[in-house]
């Protein structure tokens, strides 16, 4: 199957099977195409399966129904072409910042001098100069996420999967990290799939926002959200505010449905 899109999600459904209790349909016939160097946000209420979709693309969960293609090849396992950043950072706590960033480079078999240099470059890119020898337990939440982003960017995946990466941070840090991410993304452009339940974040960061419905997760609609990201006052622009309102209405409906379905 030839396609221009770098990531093709074709009619994917997924059953969530908890260790105890009944299986639930988490994703229902999802189709989505993401193009090279496009920034797509998956937006939806909690429990809509947006992270599950991300894990399927990452190859962490098996695709049982439908197919996911990355660069024309079926996803079967995790691989260094798809880097991932998790909400709770997932840094190796027994490695320093440098050790964490070096890890992916070691696994790629990069020569020692080269990888030391590259690790340093990315530690500096995310603004962690001076914290190379700190352990994750010694860093703040924002710094941990910077380290995690550096670790993932350093081994240069073509695709960046981000699972609510700023969801565990306080509001001020989150705002800062969002513009940081855009700055970094402009320097090392990649295809990004960004999971979030924050409407403003989605509109601000993404080129397109896929709004997902409450369980079972479906893609309700895809909205274009291309704005001039370099404009420091973009948050106040009328078009931006209107777009956020429009998406809010779409998400609110689903959030209410999701609440109602909870016992």
């Amino acid at each position, binding site marked *: 199957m030839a396609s221009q899109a770098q990531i093709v999600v074709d009619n994917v459904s997924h059953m969530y099977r908890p260790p105890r209790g009944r299986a639930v349909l988490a994703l229902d016939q999802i189709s989505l195409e993401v193009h090279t160097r496009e920034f797509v946000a998956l937006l939806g209420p909690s429990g809509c399966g947006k992270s599950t979709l991300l*894990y399927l693309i*990452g*190859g*962490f969960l098996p695709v049982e129904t439908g197919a996911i293609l990355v660069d024309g090849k079926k996803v079967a*396992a*995790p*691989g*260094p072409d*798809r*880097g*991932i950043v*998790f909400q*709770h950072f*997932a840094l*190796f*706590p*027994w*490695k320093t910042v440098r050790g964490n960033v070096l*890890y*992916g480079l070691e*696994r*790629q078999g990069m020569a020692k001098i080269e990888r030391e240099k590259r690790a340093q470059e990315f530690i500096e890119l995310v603004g962690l100069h001076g914290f190379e020898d700190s*352990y*994750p*337990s*010694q860093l703040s939440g924002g710094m941990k996420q910077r380290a995690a982003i550096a*670790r993932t960017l350093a*081994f240069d995946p073509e695709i960046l999967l981000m699972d609510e990466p700023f969801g565990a941070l306080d509001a001020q840090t989150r705002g800062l990290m969002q513009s940081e991410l855009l700055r970094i993304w402009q320097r090392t452009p990649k295809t990004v799939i960004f999971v979030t339940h924050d409407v403003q974040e989605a509109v601000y960061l993404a080129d397109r926002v896929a709004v997902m419905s409450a369980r079972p997760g479906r893609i309700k609609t895809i909205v274009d959200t291309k704005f001039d990201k370099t404009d420091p006052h973009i948050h106040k622009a009328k078009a931006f505010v209107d777009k956020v309102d429009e998406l809010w209405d779409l998400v609110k409906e689903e959030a209410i449905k999701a609440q109602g379905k909870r016992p």
Partner: protein
Amino acid sequence: MTSLANIGKEAFRYTPLLLIALAWETVSRLELVSTTALPPLSDVVAAWIDMIKNGDLISNGIASFYRGVSGLVLSIVIGAVLGIVMAWWKTVNILLAPLVEIFYPLPKSALIPVTVIWLGFGDGSKILLIVLGCMLPVTIGAFNGARSSEQVLVWSARSMGASKLRMLWDVVVPGAMPELLNAVRTALALSFILLVSSELIVAQKGFGYLIGYLGANGNYDAMYAVVLTVAFLGFAADRIYLVIAKRVLAWRE
């Protein structure tokens, strides 16, 4: 705080021991208790110095040390590998879990005669006993530690190109380390118990043998000296172990 002040503070914590030593000496010297039951501490110290001089303590100590260290190292290696393999491969767990459950609560001292029948009166039976007794706590610690390894860390390593085996070594093993090191501390204490009790029952050398021999011959000063030596070595081993474990786990703040 300077490290010297720290040492002073640490030492101060043990002043109750000094009080007990004084009380011991006093009740014994005043013959408030029979001196065969409790010889004065100063006599015990004198006997200890004699035994250091004539080499009894050293030669028996070396025998015990060899058995203890070999048994402990073997049980840590086998136990840790077993625990991690059980945590990671379901089939192995299904096969071995019932064996571990049944064997774990068995009082291992009951196996002293069995190990002697298998391996005789020498070092082999003592080492085997320690392995049998100390391995399972390590297995259980490694198992629980490996089981608790975080999904996202495993996924991160895999997405950075780590093979499954590589990931096991890079993520599961260090993640299991806190629980594993706790279990090894238990194993360390158990190894002293098993070593001395097995030597006490069947051996021709070692601390346990020496305690039994001296006791049977009514040489109580010397017997107490060996008992105190073993007690002190057990304490020292535990302290040294804690320092090493703290170093290894320095990443946890």
